[in-house]
């Protein structure tokens, strides 16, 4: 209820219940009055009919106060309940920090595109800097000047090697099975079902084994590395290493890269074997091929070159996954959500790296005639 008093003040009469559960009241009518000419001399309140109130009232009053003062109109709060007056005083006790809010102001589209571009550039620079640092550290590793704990390395090897066997077995057996299944359906038309062995064997050994192992390890170890390093950052464990003169790159990143790069070729070999086993399962149960025939056909199709090529790819994937995981972990912001973001980003980054590398390898191997 609004009205003017005789001496030109705006009188706001508040009545009834002012509860948050009833929603926040609109200040538009008050603002219209404030903007009207002649402008009110000051703002007064009358609350004899006000029944009950909570933060809804205080929020409303704070907004009215801000709008009035913005127009140079005084607000006389003496008509308000004592509790509301005290809360308002409290809310205004500390002046707003000027640039605390400015930083979060809405940016225009152009500004956002600009800042995204800049941050993409920075992130690329960071990635390259990290890669450079890691390479230098590896240079020192070969010179014997890198310090990390051997027990850490052994534990990591166990984690990314032996403990990953279960999931790699499952995935690769199934992928071999699927490959054989799809291949069989096509080859049956020509009565050439025996070539399922070639298809599965070559595909698994050349590419799919390494790729599947890499994707499993990206989700498994890349994420684990990022989460571990990220939370070490949150708890300042990384800071503690740095100030102690121990490079986190030597102490944390190098053993992870070494572990993954050395285990991935072995996992790949195992993945190849399990994939072929999956193919053989279909060959024997569905296509009535004998174990010996299938094995014979596979051995004839797969060359040592295929096998070594696949293992080399796996080695490279291992380095990429470890790098991506560690990079994202070390970049994590110091909060629990930061660790979550780092983990997600580590998996995405490593899969992107792995698939890009896979494409690159395909082109290079083709050009080299391998």
């Amino acid at each position: 209820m609004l009205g003017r008093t005789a001496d030109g003040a705006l009188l706001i009469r508040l009545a009834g219940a002012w509860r948050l559960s009833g929603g926040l009241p609109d200040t538009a009518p008050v603002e219209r009055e404030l903007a009207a000419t002649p402008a009110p001399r000051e703002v007064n309140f009358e609350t004899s009919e006000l029944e009950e109130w909570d933060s809804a009232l205080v929020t409303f009053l704070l907004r009215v106060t801000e709008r009035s003062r913005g127009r140079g109109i005084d607000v006389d709060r003496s008509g308000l309940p004592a509790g509301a007056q005290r809360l308002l005083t409290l809310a205004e006790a500390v002046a707003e920090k000027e640039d605390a809010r400015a930083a979060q102001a809405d940016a225009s589209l152009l500004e956002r595109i600009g800042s995204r571009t800049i941050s993409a550039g920075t992130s690329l620079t960071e990635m390259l800097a990290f890669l450079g640092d890691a390479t230098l550290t590896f240079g020192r590793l070969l010179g014997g000047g890198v310090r990390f704990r051997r027990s850490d390395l052994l534990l990591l090897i166990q984690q990314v090697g032996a403990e990953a066997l279960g999931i790699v077995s499952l995935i690769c057996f199934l992928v071999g099975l699927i490959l054989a299944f799809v291949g069989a359906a096509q080859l049956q038309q020509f009565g050439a079902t025996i070539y399922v062995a070639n298809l599965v064997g070559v595909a698994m050994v050349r590419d799919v084994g390494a790729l599947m192992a890499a994707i499993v390890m990206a989700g498994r170890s890349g994420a684990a590395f990022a989460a571990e390093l990220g939370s070490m950052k949150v708890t300042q464990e990384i800071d503690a290493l740095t100030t102690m003169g121990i490079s986190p790159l030597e102490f944390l990143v190098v053993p992870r890269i070494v572990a993954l790069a050395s285990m991935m070729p072995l996992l790949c070999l195992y993945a190849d074997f399990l994939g072929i086993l999956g193919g053989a399962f279909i060959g024997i149960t569905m296509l009535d091929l004998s174990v010996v025939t299938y094995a014979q056909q596979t051995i004839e199709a797969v060359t040592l070159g295929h096998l070594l090529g696949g293992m080399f790819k796996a080695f490279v994937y291992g380095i990429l996954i470890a790098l991506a995981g560690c990079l994202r972990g070390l970049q994590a912001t110091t909060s629990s959500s930061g660790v979550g973001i780092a983990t997600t980003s580590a998996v995405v980054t490593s899969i992107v790296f792995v698939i890009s590398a896979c494409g690159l390898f395909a082109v290079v191997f083709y050009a080299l005639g391998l």
Partner: protein
Amino acid sequence: MPGDAHIIVRDLTMAYGDFVLMRDLDFRVERGDIFVIMGGSGCGKSTLLRHLIGLNEPAKGEIFYGRENFTSADRARRVELLRSVGVLYQSGALWSSMTLAENVALPLQEFTDLRPAQIREVASLKLSLVGLRGFEDYYPYQISGGMQKRAGLARAIALDPEVLFFDEPSAGLDPISSKRLDDLILELRESMGATVVVVTHELASIFAIGTNSIFLDPETRTMIASGPPLELRDRSQDPKVREFLRRGRIGGMEEVA
């Protein structure tokens, strides 16, 4: 020219991007001081500490350790300078995948030529100095927060540092544990002769241990007072400093007396 003070900060400006946190910081930490960096929450005390140990780079200004310019030193030289520095982080920051003994032992393995058995012995000594004898093979998550802080202290003093930095040593501790930690800090300084720099807003600690201090004010974004805390409380001209320090009159008096 920088004199014989242990740490000299000249004209330091700290900023995150364009956001200036503190500017025009100028102070000296003398040898043997217990130097308190105080101020309200969020004014940049811990950030200042991060600058002092090289975790953040100053936007402007320089930091000297003795006569040596720390800010312009290269990475290798910084590592050397930091070898005489021990840091107790706010959360303890123990390496969670290692036992307490391994935590204390790591700096010893890295920077001394001791044999493993000797390292183990020194690590046990450091742990017993902070009252954790017998906890060598516990992991950080198996002990309480106060014990983690003390274990962090044991690690910080592993290499007998000349300067010890403490970031909010009493944060998250009950009054008794935090009093004990204060006593321990005093005791260790006495016996090791180290310079101590403490970041804190705990008045009881400030008066109990501080021999010199600076006061950071978030509104003017600079230091508005420096001197021994007791003197600041009684004689400071600045109402903000007096208000901050006198709030502790009731709680802090017993400790002071």
